[in-house]
Every structure is written in structure tokens, then in C-alpha cells.
């Protein structure tokens, strides 16, 4: 290992500890503010240290490095400033849909990481590719699902979309997407030309399934659904952390995955509903009427 690899690795270790400490703080009203500030400093630190990697890229990347660095800074500035400005200015009642929006962005980012890993074609093991594709699937579902949840809570999509045979339709979309994912892995392992088409269709299918899964759920159930997609993004990040051999991503992602699962179940329980009831029976409209 080189010195930079050591620094980046140790910064990941430090940030994992800060995240867990911060999350622990956030689970009590007294220490909650300190918790998020701790996690925030950790994040700023690890993003800054990440730029050290630019000093030791492989030979074939060197000519592209200035452009890559420029794009990275531009993307960080644009994404960060826009989200920070929106988060500050939006009214307090609109917070839940902003959480959904930002969560969807995280899912999309994990899917993008998976997409680049697939585009590299550096012939990973079937297991490695399988994890990549699974992370991409979960990330894509989280992206479009969160966007639909955001649209519903923001009043842009007032009525749930329901039609007869919807569950069968959704099931077919899911199975086709899984099959495409499997084909993506197989073509990547064998190096078949034209395998990229399967990957492209797989991403389209996963994005479509996120929409199909969320569209029939009523607006009153959205907090539980957002928490579920938060869990999904966490899991996707954890899996892509394995793909990128970055333990910090694995730990942060899986901690969020586990905490999010528990949180989702707690929130469903607070509504006197089971999670499968929220997801698969279209009671959202009924409970919204009952609450009104």
C-alpha cells in the first residue's frame, strides 16, 4: 500500500466511527444536534481526503485527469449548493418530501457508481458482478420510487395510479428486470459483444419498477415508504462499497440499512399497520379519509 492509500483508508475508518457516534447522538433529543454536526464534519473530511486519490491514478487515466477533476469540483459545487439552498429555503411543512428527494439522489448516485463499474468491463468474478447489479437494482428502485414519493407529497401527483391486474403487472416487470440483471452478469462474465444492451435495458427496467411499485400507494403512507427507500439506498450504498472495495461505504450503508429497516417497521407500527399492508394493499386512500 502506498502512503495515500493508507491516508484514504484511515480517513474511512475515522469517518465510520464519527458516523456511528453521530447516529447514536441523534437517537436522543438532548444530544441530537451534536450528533448531526459530528457526522457533518466527518463527511466534509472524507470528501476532502478523497481528492488525494487523484495523485495516484493509473497511467491510462492521466490524460483525462484534469477534466475528471474539473467535473468533480463542478458537480460537488452544483449539487451541494442547489440542495443546500433548497433545503434552507423550503418551508418546514415540506420537509418530508425533501428527505424523499435527497434520498432518491443518493440512490441514483449508487446506481451511477454501479453503472461505471459495469462500463469498465474489467471482468470481475460473477459474485462481484452480481453484487454490482443487485446494488444497481436497489439504487434505481430507490431513485424513481423516491421521486414518485416526492411528487405525491408535493401535491404534483394527487391521486394514486391504480388499475386492475396491477400486482401481476408489477410482478412481471420485476421478474423481467431480474432476468435482465442476470443476463447482464452472464454477458459481462463471458465478454459477449452487445452485452451493454442488456445492462441498459436492466437499468431501464429497474427505474420503471421503482415507479410501478410506488404509484399505487396513497399519500398518507408516504412517510413509511420514504423510510423504506432510505433503507434501500443504504443497502445499495453498502453493496457498491463492496464493489469499490471501500469499507467506509460498506459500514455507513449497512448501518443505515439496518437502522432504516428498524425505523420503517417502527413507523409502520405507529400507524397500526404492517409493512406488507402498506406496500401491497391499497389502503392509503382509506386511511387518509379516516384521518381527515
Amino acid at each position, binding site marked *: 500500500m502506498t502512503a495515500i492509500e493508507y491516508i484514504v483508508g484511515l480517513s474511512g475508518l475515522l469517518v465510520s466511527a464519527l458516523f456511528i457516534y453521530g447516529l447514536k447522538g*441523534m437517537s436522543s433529543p438532548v444530544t441530537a*444536534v451534536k450528533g448531526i454536526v459530528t457526522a457533518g464534519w466527518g463527511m466534509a473530511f472524507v470528501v476532502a481526503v478523497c481528492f488525494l486519490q487523484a495523485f495516484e491514478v493509473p497511467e491510462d487515466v492521466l490524460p483525462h485527469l484534469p477534466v475528471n477533476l474539473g*467535473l468533480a469540483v463542478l458537480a460537488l459545487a452544483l*449539487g451541494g449548493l442547489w440542495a443546500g439552498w433548497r433545503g434552507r429555503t423550503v418551508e418546514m411543512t415540506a420537509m418530508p418530501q*425533501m428527505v424523499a428527494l*435527497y434520498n432518491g439522489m443518493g440512490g441514483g448516485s449508487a446506481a451511477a457508481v454501479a*453503472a461505471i463499474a459495469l462500463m469498465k468491463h474489467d471482468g470481475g468474478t460473477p459474485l462481484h458482478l452480481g453484487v454490482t447489479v443487485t446494488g444497481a437494482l436497489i439504487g434505481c428502485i430507490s431513485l424513481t420510487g423516491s421521486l414518485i414519493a416526492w411528487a405525491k407529497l408535493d401535491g404534483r401527483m394527487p391521486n394514486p395510479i391504480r388499475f386492475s391486474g396491477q400486482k401481476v403487472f408489477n410482478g412481471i416487470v420485476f421478474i423481467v428486470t431480474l432476468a435482465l440483471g442476470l443476463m447482464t452478469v452472464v454477458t459481462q462474465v463471458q465478454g459477449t459483444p452487445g452485452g451493454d444492451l442488456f445492462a441498459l435495458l436492466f437499468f431501464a427496467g429497474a427505474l420503471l419498477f421503482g415507479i410501478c411499485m410506488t404509484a399505487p400507494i396513497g399519500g398518507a403512507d408516504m412517510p413509511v415508504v420514504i423510510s423504506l427507500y432510505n433503507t434501500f439506498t443504504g443497502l445499495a450504498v453498502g453493496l457498491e462499497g*463492496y464493489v469499490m472495495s471501500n*469499507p467506509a461505504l460498506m459500514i455507513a*450503508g449497512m448501518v443505515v440499512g439496518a437502522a432504516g429497516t428498524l425505523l420503517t417497521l417502527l413507523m409502520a407500527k405507529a400507524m397500526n399497520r404492517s409493512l406488507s399492508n402498506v406496500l401491497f394493499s391499497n389502503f392509503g386512500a382509506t386511511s387518509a379519509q379516516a384521518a381527515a
Partner: protein
Amino acid sequence: MLTSMTFIIALYIFMLAAFTGYVVISRVPSILHTPLMSGSNFIHGIVVVGALTALFSATNVMEQVVGFLGVLLGAGNVMGGYVVTDRMLAMFRPSTKKPAQAATDKKTAS
């Protein structure tokens, strides 16, 4: 970064992290459910580090475009998650501690 991490070690890390997440969140008061969801939303924003690493190693335009999108979305996740959590938790802040901050929060909230 580890270069020779086996799948089994990855499973160990996942198992320990999952338990950590479970233990940290269990017995949390229900008023903190939404801020915690937002806080964990911020924490998985660390995916931006993965996206940055991927973008740094991009060698063609397509990879650069996808990498740019990944970093853009990840940065939005990080900043948005932090700001929203901070604003939610400002409601738990003792009002004497930072009166200026509380005042601006109230102004934007109303």
C-alpha cells in the same frame, strides 16, 4: 483502500455494521423518527465518495457523464440531508443556546 478484500471479510463487515445500526436505533423515542430518517439519509450520502473515486478513474466521455451525474446526485444527497436534518433538529435546540440561529429558523419556517 483494501485491494484484496475477500467476500467473506465483506460479510463480516456487513454483519457487524447491521448489528451496530440496529443497536444504535433501538428504543428511540417516536418524536425522533423523522429526524433520524433524515439523519441516516445524510449518512448514506457518503456514496458521493464512491462516485468521486469512480469519476477520477473515468477514461471516456460516457464514464465522465455518468460519473458527473453520480457526484452531482451524491453531493445533493449530502448537502440536502445535512441541511434538512439540521433544520429539523433545530426544533430540539435549547432556545437560549443560539438565539440568532433559532430566530432565522423561525423566520424561514413561518
